[in-house]
């Protein structure tokens, strides 16, 4: 969807790097997009990724190194998915790698 007004500001926000406050704000916008647009699953996953990461960072003394570990790869992968959506591509196949990155960063894999 070229020139999509709601996606461009999100890409712009992601280009500045992540923070807990930014993840909360992105999560909130993804939640709204999941309800407003056709790509419900994509935005639902993006919202969950941002929300879980924001929760992991909230209320913690997060060292700079730990912050880098927790957020590594996330902004780039989300931006890649958003660019796909802007170009009218479904981006579904990019959701699993994103969730894998999140789980790896948070140390959530049990297998």
């Amino acid at each position, binding site marked *: 969807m070229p020139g999509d007004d709601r996606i461009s500001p999100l890409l712009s*926000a992601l*280009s*500045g*790097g*992540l*923070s*807990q*406050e*930014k993840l*909360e704000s992105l999560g*909130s916008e993804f*939640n709204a997009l999941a309800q407003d647009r056709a790509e419900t699953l994509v935005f639902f996953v993006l919202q969950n990724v941002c929300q879980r990461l924001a929760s992991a*960072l*909230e*209320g913690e*003394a*997060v*060292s*700079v190194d730990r*912050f880098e570990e927790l957020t590594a790869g996330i902004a780039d992968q989300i931006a890649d998915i958003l660019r796909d959506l802007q170009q009218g591509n479904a981006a579904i196949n990019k959701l699993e790698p994103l969730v894998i990155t999140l789980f790896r960063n948070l140390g959530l894999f049990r297998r």
Partner: protein
Amino acid sequence: MQRSTHSVDVKAPTPKEQLLEILKEKSVCRGTFTLASGTQSDFYVDAKLTTSNPRAALLVGRVGWELVKQTARARNVHIDSIGGLTMGADWMALSIGIAAHLENSQAALRVFSVRKSAKEHGRLKRIEGNFSSGDSVVVVDDVITTGGSTIQAIDAIEEAGGRIAFVIALVDREEGGRENIEKRGHKVVPIFTRAELIGADAGRRSHIAVA
């Protein structure tokens, strides 16, 4: 035997001094941290370790309630309720509410909490607890850095029909948050500033910030 009339002048610490000691001991961490705003700092204030401590909570209540009364008098405003964004504000608001109740149970403050986002079912409430549209509100936050969480609370309270009397914070990190909130027309009154907590020049952030 003649009793000595000489007395040693040992001044008992005030509640605010006692609170500062607890805050320094329990809540100030040194290191290199990424804050919620994405900025980096060489100190972190985990205020919840203080506000959830029973002894400190009593002191937060006493000191905070005095500050609320003093500020309300100076600004000639009446206060109906107190609250802020969960969870940083919750223990602090309740402590101040309890102190107000102990002083005068008839004129007690009502206490509420602001959710980070509205519930998506039921009554879609963003504010929980004792708040009414039209209330004159003191907004509370534990630590102000960029002012983001305080502004979120202000927006939610105003959207629900509250009027902001002023804002109080346990710690103002003096990193622009107070100015950001005051730009919106709301006075900010901190109990402690960064200078009081860690010294005037210590802990200056590295200004590595994300946009």
